[in-house]
């Protein structure tokens, strides 16, 4: 192995060599720089490989002296990894800045090289004075780069940066000299042995050293200077600061923390938490992309500091967790900064321009999802491990703090991403692409996926994850250039094969949900044939959602479950945001999903606590705070079923989604939440449930959700929103049924699960297809379409009869079971609310069918065609399902009942042929259906006989007080139909929940806006912050 000291040789040598390069040979200079960095990278990389393969770490002493008289470097596994990382990003950064540095001249190139070299040494050094020297070198190099290459604002920022780092390094220097004075050594290992913190006076020295390193890490709130540089400097330099410098500094903190001793762990974690939450909250108001990234960087470092603080608790997992977060941050942040440099838009709203080159949008999405901690990126696994361990050791407040901070980060990052996907980009100038700028971005994006995959392989549970669906998604993504027809066929075949392969392995309950997900998925995909062109990006995200859904079903471990959950969230987010006006709804969907996922995460962590296993069966035996754990799990799942209070994302998200996406996210996706609730309730012990209050509360929540969802649906003018609110209500029924925790309740709930899937898919597909034809969502702009689309009308009619629970169609099964269950359980008032909701449902269903299909046909719809055949096929297949279920309910209910009996053996239905009996009554589905059909046919025959010929008339042939109607628009009763009901019940329609959430977000944003004004842009203020930070930490840590 080559001695790591040669990094210095290469760096300095390269820099000197650059001095000899003629000023005009700029290319040569830049190439020499890149070559030098690459050489350093090869050197450190070879060390890394060697160390991984078991070589021993090496200490280096220059000039043959022992410390403190020499430069003292250590090359261990951590150092190897981090120096390689720094050199890697340095090389990419060098490539990215190639033209820029070339313009700036040989000096800048030289400084860049020294910067990278300095960072290498900062990581490797074991001597605190050394550390000081190289820190200064890095700062000076950074400031030098800025002054050599920039003008204007960046120079101002650079000056503030100089000033602040100058003061900070002064403090560090005082700390160093004191440490030396009290301990007699400058070597970190020596200081560790001397227990510097325990020496008289040494604690102050230690405090100064630690605080200055913390300040160098730009800890909140003494970080205005750092933010200014992030914002002002060239994006390439920002990337280096965020990815390389922060990585190096973080490792310094790690080294010094060993020296400082375990009593510092707590403080580091605390400061980290303040920094993480503080900067993420302040970032909420940010509109400038680079500054936002700066805030995010600081936040991420805060998170990493928390991890460091808990290194004793995390134990052997610390590097796994820290590297997981660090590498996600390092790649993603560099990538985002570089993208910022390519897009060249400061205001995040203008990032919509990135959509003009879709693959850049993909890159941006990759980075943002990696930062938030979505699978398959390393941060996902790291965060999982972190939360599991922290909950396991009882550090719940910390977990809450971490997840709150992450949540805030999700808010602004997804808002930004929302602008990129959906913002207005007509008037924004397109950006130019240069090869040297794309290359590094592409490489870090690929690196994120690769590291994610390998991070997963590192743990046992992670290695068990089934990656086949994801590879399928990736394949579809690569094939995205193909036309819809081909991709759709591939997707359908893929899903069908996958379903065929896995269904024998599933138990009945999972099979029900998997069938809904997969068969429903295939049916809704058939509707995709109606679309022309390429439909860029649709298939990867749709399949991503299905991959997540099937992963939830197949999950053997909680990690797999959560993995699938997050994949599903990501996929559905992209699906939802594809709609025309879905930017705000996509955001709120994502935020509720992320919040719900965090609730799940804590809940799963509590399940893990004390059981030391990740198998799915652990949620059956939660012993650590079980009430809280089950409660959190349920809350997490309720965000997906859109229970009241957590529902505000749904109407917009489902209402604005594309025609074939709405059924996917409504009829299918919502069932994922139900599946989770089912799992949780089974976990709570089924019949022998020992947590009675949770289901009780859940039951009331379900009933009230059913009521308010349905009531809101009545007052909608938008057909798809109406259906969306209806979904909220229907899911309320399901939740209530499940919460009853009895055989009949569950049977009713499952009956609704199947039914809701069938009829909501029918309704959303049909209405979606109608919308595609008439190009509007507003019901009052439609009308009379039965004349133009009779098949669609029949579909909707059967759908609404099934939904409303009118016998003989399948909806009645659910109603009947519910009544019996309510009576058995004794939840009369909840039941009454639910049945009242049923009555309300009848209103919006009539409104839906009347205002769209009946009444007066509008002039501009006189020639619309029947809905597309590709929509009709799945619709009629689903209708066939409804009819079979209606006429032969025992075919569905009997197996469901047998399945439920394993958890709820009491109070089963008894079947006698087609007749079901409970102790309260009976129901003969087939007989009722036959009776009604016969009666109907007889009456119809009578009418046919007695009206020998009926003259077919047209739409205006109505009695109109002797006049004729002027226009269909003025004759069609459709707008504000239920005015009377509104006058009676307006009080129940006040959107309290939405107001509450708005108040919460407003409060957070206003707080952020006020607090961020401490960064007033004046360099002196920043120095005051630094001094105050030192004083406060002194009093808190030493004095307190």
């Amino acid at each position: 192995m080559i001695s790591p000291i040669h990094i210095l040789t290469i760096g300095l040598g390269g820099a000197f060599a650059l001095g000899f390069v003629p000023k005009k040979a700029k290319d040569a200079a830049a190439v020499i720089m890149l070559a030098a960095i690459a050489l350093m990278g090869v050197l450190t990389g070879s060390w890394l490989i060697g160390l991984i393969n078991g070589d021993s770490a090496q200490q280096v002493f220059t000039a043959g002296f022992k410390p403190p008289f020499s430069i003292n470097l250590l090359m261990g596994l951590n150092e190897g990894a981090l120096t390689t990382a720094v050199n890697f990003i340095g090389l990419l950064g060098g490539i990215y800045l190639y033209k820029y540095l070339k313009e700036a001249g040989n000096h800048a190139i030289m400084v860049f090289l020294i910067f990278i070299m300095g960072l290498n040494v900062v990581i490797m050094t074991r001597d605190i004075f050394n550390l000081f020297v190289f820190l200064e070198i890095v700062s000076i190099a950074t400031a030098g780069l800025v002054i050599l290459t920039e003008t204007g604002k960046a120079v101002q920022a650079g000056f503030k940066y100089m000033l602040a780092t100058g003061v900070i390094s002064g403090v560090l220097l005082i700390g160093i000299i004191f440490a030396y004075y009290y301990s007699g050594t400058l070597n970190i290992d020596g200081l560790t042995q001397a227990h510097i913190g325990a020496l008289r006076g040494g604690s102050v020295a230690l405090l100064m050293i630690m605080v200055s390193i913390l300040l160098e890490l730009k800890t909140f709130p003494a970080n205005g200077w750092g933010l200014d540089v992030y914002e002002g400097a060239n994006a390439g330099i920002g990337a280096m600061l965020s990815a390389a410098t922060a990585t190096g500094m973080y490792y310094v903190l790690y080294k010094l923390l060993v020296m400082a001793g375990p009593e510092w762990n707590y403080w580091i974690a605390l400061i980290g938490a303040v920094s993480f939450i503080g900067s993420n909250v302040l970032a909420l108001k940010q509109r400038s992309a680079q500054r936002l990234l700066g805030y995010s960087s600081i936040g991420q470092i805060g998170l990493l500091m928390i991890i460091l603080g808990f290194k004793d608790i995390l134990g052997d997992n610390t590097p796994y967790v820290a590297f997981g977060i660090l590498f996600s941050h390092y790649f993603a942040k560099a990538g985002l900064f570089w993208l910022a440099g390519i897009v060249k838009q400061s205001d995040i709203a203008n990032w919509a321009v990135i959509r003009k080159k879709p693959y850049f949008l993909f890159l941006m999405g990759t980075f943002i999802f990696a930062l938030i901690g979505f699978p398959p990126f390393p941060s996902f696994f790291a965060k999982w491990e972190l939360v599991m361990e922290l909950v396991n050791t009882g550090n719940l407040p910390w977990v809450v703090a971490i997840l709150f901070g992450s949540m805030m980060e999700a808010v602004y990052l997804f808002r930004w991403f929302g602008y990129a996907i959906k913002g207005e980009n007509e008037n924004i100038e397109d950006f130019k692409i240069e090869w040297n700028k794309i290359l590094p971005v592409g490489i870090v994006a690929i690196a994120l996926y690769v590291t994610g995959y390998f991070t997963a392989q590192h743990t046992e549970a992670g290695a068990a994850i089934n990656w086949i669906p994801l590879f399928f998604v990736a394949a579809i993504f690569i094939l995205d250039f193909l036309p819809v027809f081909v991709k759709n066929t591939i997707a359908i075949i893929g899903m069908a094969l996958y379903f065929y392969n896995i269904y024998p392995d599933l138990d009945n309950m999972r099979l029900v949900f998997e069938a809904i997900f997969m068969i429903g998925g295939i049916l809704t995909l058939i509707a995709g044939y109606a679309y022309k062109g390429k439909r860029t990006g649709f298939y990867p995200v749709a399949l991503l959602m299905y991959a997540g859904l099937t992963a939830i079903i197949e999950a053997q471990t909680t990690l797999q479950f959560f993995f699938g959950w997050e994949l599903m969230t990501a996929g559905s987010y992209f699906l939802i945001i594809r709609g025309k006006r879905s930017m705000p709804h996509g955001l709120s969907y994502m935020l509720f999903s992320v919040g719900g996922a965090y609730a799940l995460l804590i809940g799963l962590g509590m399940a893990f606590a004390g059981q030391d296993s990740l198998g799915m069966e652990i949620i059956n035996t939660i012993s650590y705070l079980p009430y809280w754990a089950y409660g959190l799990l349920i809350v997490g799942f309720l965000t997906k079923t859109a229970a009241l209070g957590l529902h505000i994302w749904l109407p917009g998200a489902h209402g604005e989604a594309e025609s074939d996406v709405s059924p996917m996210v409504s009829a299918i996706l919502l069932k994922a939440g139900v599946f989770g609730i089912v799992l949780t309730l089974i976990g709570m012990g089924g019949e022998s449930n020992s947590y009675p209050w949770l289901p009780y509360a859940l039951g009331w929540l379900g009933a009230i959700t059913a009521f308010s969802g349905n009531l809101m649906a009545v007052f909608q003018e938008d057909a798809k929103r109406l259906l969306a609110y209806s979904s909220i209500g229907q899911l309320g029924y399901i939740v209530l049924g499940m919460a009853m925790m009895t055989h009949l309740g569950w049977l009713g709930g499952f009956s609704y699960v199947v039914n809701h899937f069938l009829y909501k898919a029918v309704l959303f597909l049909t209405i979606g297809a109608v919308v595609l034809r008439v190009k509007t969502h507003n019901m009052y702009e439609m009308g009379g379409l039965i004349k133009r689309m009779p098949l669609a009308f029949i579909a909707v009619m059967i759908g609404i009869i099934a939904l409303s629970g009118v016998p003989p169609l399948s909806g009645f099964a659910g109603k009947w079971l519910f009544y019996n269950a309510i009576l058995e359980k004794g939840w009369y008032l909840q039941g009454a609310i639910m049945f009242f909701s049923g009555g309300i449902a009848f209103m919006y269903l009539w409104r839906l069918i009347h205002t769209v299909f009946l009444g007066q046909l509008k002039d501009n719809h006189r020639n619309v065609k029947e809905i597309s055949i590709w929509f009709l096929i799945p619709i009629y297949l689903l209708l066939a399902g409804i009819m079979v279920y209606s006429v032969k309910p025992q075919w569905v209910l009997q197996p469901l009942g047998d399945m439920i009996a394993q958890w709820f053996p009491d109070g089963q239905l008894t079947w006698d042929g087609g007749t079901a009996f409970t102790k309260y009554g009976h129901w003969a589905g087939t007989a009722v259906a036959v009776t009604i059909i016969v009666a109907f046919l007889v009456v119809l025959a009578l009418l046919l006989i007695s009206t020998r010929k009926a003259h077919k008339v047209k739409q205006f042939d109505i009695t109109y007080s002797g006049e004729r109607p002027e226009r269909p628009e003025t004759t069609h009763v459709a707008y504000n139909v239920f005015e009377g009901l509104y006058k009676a019940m307006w009080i129940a329609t006040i959107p309290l929940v939405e107001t509450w959430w708005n108040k919460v977000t407003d409060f957070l944003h206003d707080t952020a806006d006020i607090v961020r004004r401490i960064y007033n842009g004046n360099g002196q203020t920043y120095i005051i912050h630094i001094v105050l930070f030192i004083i406060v930490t002194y009093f808190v840590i030493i004095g307190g």
Partner: protein
Amino acid sequence: MEYITITTGFLIILAGLWAIMTRKNIIRIIIGFSLFDTGIHIVMVSMAYVKGGVAPILDKNELLTDTANKIVDPVPQALVLTAIVIGLGVTALMLAYAMKLHSEKKSLDIESFKDLKW
């Protein structure tokens, strides 16, 4: 005696900080920084002082006598040289910044360079 130097050093540090935090003129701020730096250097050197010590220049004779135990600690003195060099570099770069800032806004008032904030 050593207390005088160390106290002086800290006073100079505080004076420098004061200047950095309150003066509006960038040149004065830089001078403040210089003071701050110098104060640190004085503190460093005085920390190494041993009462009644001699300069840490050793030859054969002194090694043979008791004087070797009386030398002041050489390490800080070595360090201070590096620190001075770095301080010089930083100050120089700051002055360069001052020039560039002045050339852009024709002002040296730190208040006028607040374009980036919040």
